[in-house]
């Protein structure tokens, strides 16, 4: 499971980095989204990968069977903030498209 998670994060990060280096704004935003998925999974990963474990502490429960609740809280915050800023970026992207008439990140096509 760790291997699958690691490969998943790696593939998404790689694709995301490649995409944000592309010249079209749409590619940049998809790249940023992919990167943020990868980062969210990474935050999950640092808490230790466990399945079927609850983050609830009770009397007489062995600590090793628990999952760490802090990364869950962190990832939730990260998703909310990431979602909001990506939505904002999308608006700016549309504004730039409307003002410059092109979807190139520099606002003009590269000379051929």
């Amino acid at each position, binding site marked *: 499971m760790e291997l699958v998670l690691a490969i998943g994060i790696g593939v998404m990060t790689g694709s995301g980095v490649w995409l*944000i280096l592309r010249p079209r*704004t749409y590619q*940049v935003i998809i790249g*940023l989204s992919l*990167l*943020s998925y990868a*980062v969210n999974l*990474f*935050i999950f*990963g*640092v*808490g230790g990968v466990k399945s079927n474990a609850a983050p609830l502490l009770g009397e007489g429960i062995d600590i090793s069977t628990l999952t760490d609740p*802090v*990364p869950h809280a*962190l990832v939730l*915050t*990260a998703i909310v*903030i*990431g979602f*909001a*800023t*990506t939505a*904002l*970026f999308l608006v*700016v*992207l549309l*504004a*730039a498209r409307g*003002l*410059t008439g092109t979807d190139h*990140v*520099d*606002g003009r096509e590269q000379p051929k």
Partner: protein
Amino acid sequence: MSGWQQHLIIAPILIPLVAGALLLFFDERERVVKAMISVVSCLALAAVAITLFRLANGGSGEGGFEGVYLLGNWPAPFGIVLVVDRLSALMLVLTSILAIPALVFALARWHAAGAHFHTLFQLLLMGLNGAFLTGDLFNLFVFFEVMLAASYGLLMHGSGSMRVKAGMHYIAVNLAAALCFLIGVSAIYGSAGTLNMADLAVRIGEIEGERRMLLEAGAGILGIVFLIKAGMWPLNFWLPGAYSAATAPVAGIFAIMSKVGIYVILRLSLLVFGQGESAGLGLNVLLYGGMATIAFGTIGVLASQALGRLASYSVLVSSGTLLAVLGLSNGQVTAGALFYMVSSTMTICAFFMLIELVERGQDAGASVLAVTMEAYGDADEEEREVEVGITMPGTIAVLGICFAACGILLSGLPPLSGFVAKFAMLTGMIGMNAQEGPISASVWWIVGLLILSGLAALISMTRAGIRTFWASMEGTVPRVLVMEMAPVMLLIALTLTLTIKAGPAMTYMEETVRNLQQPATYIDAVINARRAGVAEASGPDGGGGL
């Protein structure tokens, strides 16, 4: 310890938050009400910041001001804490001092150029204050995002394709940086098991082997984020475009935003990486990166044609100087750097606003105004001017004097505070190894770069001054309102005060650095912070039940 003083710590976050929310209830057309709320909030913020500054300066004696605020009354490593020490109090005061002139300047005309200026401005202040106050890494991320989200809106205030294009680059860079921030924070959490800065400083001594590697990698990634914010070469190509495209009051308040990165680096490097096995992590990066930034900024200052870009590259020179000097990690030099930070931030803020006034008289500059002139015709423009307020007599003379003062401050010539700041840093550097032996090569490099960057600033400012004030005398005199001139003059007057009060100010900075170099005091204050309503006799063990 009295209750209200303790609760004052959270006020710099709450005041702008409440004001920002309140502003949303009023329609954009009710500008007077909006302006009033915004001004009152900024004044309250300044009062609170100055009170906190005095309390923090008073020291934490027995029964005195503690400076730690437990949010929700949770004990320190579990809950989130806000901490006021000398450094954060200094940053709070600096923020509020910049906010008032920037806001007054905006009230003259810029706040009407788009929607929700005041709300965004207040939220930006909230993010800045929160970043300076928080004692928790993840909370720092949240406040960073609050600040950035507000800054995205502010940067594009006034619209226009230049601003939207610069804004798009700015947002893309900062979104990528935010992801790095998350990676760094979670790597630190994964290896140390805590996000509280004080707790992290305690635990870092116990972390061994692979975990330490992960922690240092996390800290490195985190460092990159703050270096992007501070504008270290080669992470700073977004900065000149963004800062010079922003409207004048926004660029003015952005001057403090690049200092947030510097603040966090200073805080973390001395608190967490001050001593122990990982001591001095990344100091070389700061030193050489800072020197490269000064060189890059200096070339930029010399090469820039437009005044806006000149000011943006001055931001880079200022950041580079601070980074390089922090990389030396010497108490006396760092104290000088703090003084330099205060002086240069105020100067750059004043300069950004001054530029807009100066360029208003030129045909090339102030594109938005030119558009307005075209659309409504000259006569209409004059008529509107009369309505807004009285124009300044002897405008050119006053503008010229302010411009000269900015030039003197930026290049670090006597008699203003720019000189005192540079002198403090240079004497610190040269006296650094006096007992131990000859001065090292890197110190000579920094000294050389600092002096060269001052010279470059002087050359550029002189050239720009001649071009604007002497060459174009027969051109149109810019129409400038008293309300727009006053903030610039206030900031320059403040640097003058800083020059006169340089002695007490330097004592404060030295005291600040001494505090920072003894992280034990900070850690102790945070970990042993007393919870409200808990009897003192029970002791601050924090591990007890309810």
